[in-house]
């Protein structure tokens, strides 16, 4: 049974088993590699996407759970990579290995959408589910504060 949803602003219909986690639909069916596999258990946050604007772990959402919803991935966070969090991440030179950062950015973007100028505690609470093995947390905090001061990008 094909499942339809809106992916990065585009209507998309996928005909694979509806139990397949959204993460693997994105990566192996739709060839969107920005969303990362880290744990497969909702423990690391590397696979974070937005489902109707809410940050979720795509490894825990079966494809059928996305039916009729809006899915935004790192590739669709902004049209040209200029979402405030993306600009702030570059300016603060946040990444080390970079593997977790797409997930970090998606969670941070969802935080700023609901809490435009978060405190350190609000950042810590929102970002707790996103592991960074290289431990760039100091810069992640700084970049989110920075992003809160930037004008919104094209999207």
């Amino acid at each position, binding site marked *: 049974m094909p499942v339809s949803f809106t992916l990065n602003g585009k209507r998309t219909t996928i005909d694979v088993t509806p139990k397949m986690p959204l993460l693997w639909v994105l990566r192996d069916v739709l060839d969107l590699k920005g969303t990362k*596999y880290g744990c497969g258990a909702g423990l690391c946050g590397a696979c974070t996407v937005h489902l109707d604007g809410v940050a979720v772990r795509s490894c825990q959402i079966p494809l059928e759970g996305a039916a009729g919803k809006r899915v935004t991935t790192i590739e669709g966070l902004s049209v040209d990579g200029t979402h405030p969090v993306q600009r702030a991440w570059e300016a603060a030179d946040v990444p*080390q*290995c970079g593997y977790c950062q797409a997930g970090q950015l998606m969670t941070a973007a969802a935080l700023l959408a609901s809490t435009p100028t978060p405190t350190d505690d609000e950042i810590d609470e929102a970002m707790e589910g996103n592991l960074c093995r290289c431990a760039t947390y100091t810069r992640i905090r700084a970049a989110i504060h920075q992003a809160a001061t930037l004008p919104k990008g094209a999207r």
Partner: protein
Amino acid sequence: MTAALDRREFLKVTALVGGGLAIGSWWQPVDAAGLPLADVFEPNAFIRITADSAITIVSKNPEIGQGIKTSLPMLVAEELDVAWTSITVEQAMSDPARYGSQVAGGSTATPAHYDSMRQAGAVARQMLLAAAAATWGVPESECTTKDGMVRHTGSKRAMRYGALAAKAATMPVPDAKTVRLKDPKDFTVIGTAVPGVDNPAIVRGKPLFGIDVTVPGMLYAVYQKCPVFGGTVVTADLDAVRALPGVKQAFVVNGGTNLAGLLSGVAILADSWWAADEARKQLKVTWAEGPTAAQSSTGFAAQAATLAAGTAQRTLRQDGDVGAALTGAAQTVEAAYSYPFLAHATLEPMNCTARVVDGKVEIWAPSQNPQSGRQLVAQTLGVTAADITIHMTRVGGGFGRRLNNDYMVEAAAIAKQAGVPVKLLWSRADDIQHDFYRPAGFHFLKGGVDAAGKLVAWQNHFVSFGEGQGFVASANIGATEFPALFIPNYRLQSSVMPLGVPTGFLRAPGSNALAFVAQSFLDELAHAAKRDPLQFRLDLLGPPRVVEENGRTIYDAGRMRGVLESVRQRSGWGTRALPAGHGLGVAFHFSHRGYFAEVVEASVSADRGVRVHGVWVAGDIGRQVVNPSNAVNQVQGSVIDGLSEAFGQEITVVGGRVQQSNFDDFPLMRIPQAPKVIDVHFVTSDVGPTGLGEPALPPVVPALCNAIFAVTGTRIRSLPLTRQGFHSA
């Protein structure tokens, strides 16, 4: 010299690299007309300049998050005298004949390549200068370079490097060893904060990592090995698995006995990785578990205690008379220290993509040491090294794990047997349960201080793992391990027991455990002597001097004093009024050519929740920090990495298999627990720059434990802290 790369090949390569060029718009190019576009100035393996002034710098080493893909090209760009924003960085293929060593390990790249990368840039610059001088008919000594351009002030002429490319390629190549290098005061790239070259791609989610590779026609693979290390497949119910949705192939792979090579297992190939992994859940295998099934962490601890009670197998060092010194000491302390096995848990699990066609093997691998992978694949598949092509992808975390290439040889063997290209990806459980672990260790110490509060005796019986009397990988200790050569009576002995569990290097190998032991026990002795722990350490280091043995430099006491004094001042040690319930702990350690001292400020709640309020780090990595932005990031990450290890990480073995499987039982520190203040300061010494991937980690573990003692009076002699009833708050 002529172009080594033909135009078509060049276009192909640059198209792959993408990225585009950012040439300063302020500059109107001097006429490059008449120069054929095919001209490429390629004075060495690291630089390509085309007639349109596209400047490509090749980064040869694996990028694992240490920032080398940015910092090595910075060295080239500095001496080439080009604006950093005007160049494109390209990742090299694995090709040691062309590039020399290509390894990410041991924090060695900066000390090994600081000069050679600068020389590579300077050689090119020298040839461009010569080309300009010849073109204009002026003395070379009157020409200067700046921002990718040669100028002759006298005649007010200037040419961009691209316009000189064809001519430069015909100039004699100067000797790299004698070519003139910049005076550091003229640096415009080295020592400036340069963001990572892949940052734009990372924040846009572009495919960069091994796990992102796609090869036409490939299948996705999982590989089920025996949960007991070294176990082999007896039978597997393959037909049942083959019938499952999405599964295309399932077969047994025969392996050998080398734990770092190809091991026996079952490969399942499907049209998505999820389908392959789902099918694995239905797989039934009968294993021959082998002798390691008898091993366990509790068994190791019991054997260690038995070995410690007996006579040590080896004496690695004996200075003075420890027995007499202990007898005569005013205070003695005896303590047993231990620490567990640790996994690496890189966030990108082990993976590799391979294609085997007509005896030729093509590999896309996130590896820290692709060349050793090439040898392993060649040996295992029965091909020659020259038949193997290895693409070096960006690596989603190394920490020493990917110095081993077991996943690479698995992908190659599976692809060969399947007859189709294969992307092998390990699950998180595979990753944690088939690692090369930081070995556990057991130390049985005695120490003594005299009536003046001076350390006079130190004895350590280190019980570790090994075959015969030798140590297994990374489970060793050196005969000059601190405080050897700093006290008159020092004895270091060792005993080993058989293991069967694969071990390997984990970030700051050896040091990440030995610093915990030495700097914690030193703290015990300082308190026994009723001395300030930091001053006690300064007194132990003694006057600034280089400590040598047999003509070899062992330790620079002056450099360590420098960082210890720095961190004393910056942390407010002994001078700052601490909030109630807060305490400071200090530790230092020398490793990977770097001298680091660290102070941790912590508080402990009634339910033993430990909060780290701040960490002060002073490091000495020589006279020049190549990229200060990345340097601070590396140090802050090392600190939190060390805190993660100390607080909750432990791999336990039961029945020859690992019990942990994911981030719930092998926790990494999360952002709320990460200290808000991590102060990083570099002390400079007049020695060549050294690496920063590792040396900042070791001191933070004992500094934390010593801070906990300062607050609670509880001495931490065994890690992780969760074992002692503490947790991270």
